[in-house]
């Protein structure tokens, strides 16, 4: 056995591409919900109906863009934003997989302790 400094483990826990962190905000979740409808939207359209400024919405969109959930598409002089589900599909599938593996392992634990 060898020990490893905790700091190294702690460093490993730093988020890298935190899709979940990006979605851990009500404004951004609301933006994603709007874009999920499938249509590309401009910043003006996305700002409408919220209590936030255009700048604030832009800032939130940048965060969503940085993790790949939202893409910016330029048409002429206007930027429009669209939804890109792929990064979330990846994590959801991975969670499902790990979850199934636990089901199998825990059923083996059950046989192991109940027999």
């Amino acid at each position, binding site marked *: *056995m*060898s*020990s*490893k400094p*905790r700091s*190294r*483990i702690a460093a*490993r*826990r*730093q*988020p*890298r*591409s*935190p*899709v*979940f*962190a990006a*979605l*851990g905000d*009500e404004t951004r*979740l*609301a933006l*994603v*919900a709007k874009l*999920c409808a499938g249509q590309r939207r401009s910043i003006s359209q996305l700002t409408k109906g919220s209590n936030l400024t255009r700048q604030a919405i832009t800032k939130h969109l940048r965060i969503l863009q940085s*993790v*790949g959930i939202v893409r910016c598409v330029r048409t002429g002089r206007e930027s429009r934003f669209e939804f890109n*589900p792929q*990064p*979330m*599909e*990846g*994590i*959801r*599938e*991975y*969670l*499902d*997989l*790990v*979850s199934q593996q*636990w*089901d199998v*392992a*825990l059923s*083996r*634990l*059950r*046989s*192991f*302790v*109940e027999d």
Partner: protein
Amino acid sequence: MESRIEKRIELKAPVSRVWRALTDYREFGEWFRVQLDGPFIPGQVSRGQITHPGYEHVKWEAFVEKMEPERLFSFTWPHPKSLGKDDCPQDYSQEPTTLVEFRLEKTANGTLLVLTESGFDHLPADRRLEAFRRNDGGWTEQMKNIETYVEQTP
């Protein structure tokens, strides 16, 4: 969004029996299917080799966090990008980790075991594991989660 796994199972065995199955490295190895080099010690790395058929090439490595007798056993472990024979990493030091916690509670008929694994929000967004991609159902479910979240937190 839910980024953790939680499993609750009731076992028809005393807490002390379940605790031993979880924390004795030989017993853990039996049901988890891993050959561990030595006992679990809080603050130390546990090493070994997976014995699950088809995954014998995969190394086991975990950092033992807590061992509170008959209550809580926890460790962090890496989630390498691939577990394939050709591309499974030999060095996990750069791999992102999650926290696994086993909590035990005495019940009328035995023991309630609550397993949680958390910290998936620290995994890279590209953690797709193409080999495991099976269906498109995931996204539909995710949409429902978002809807629910948005409705509940107006």
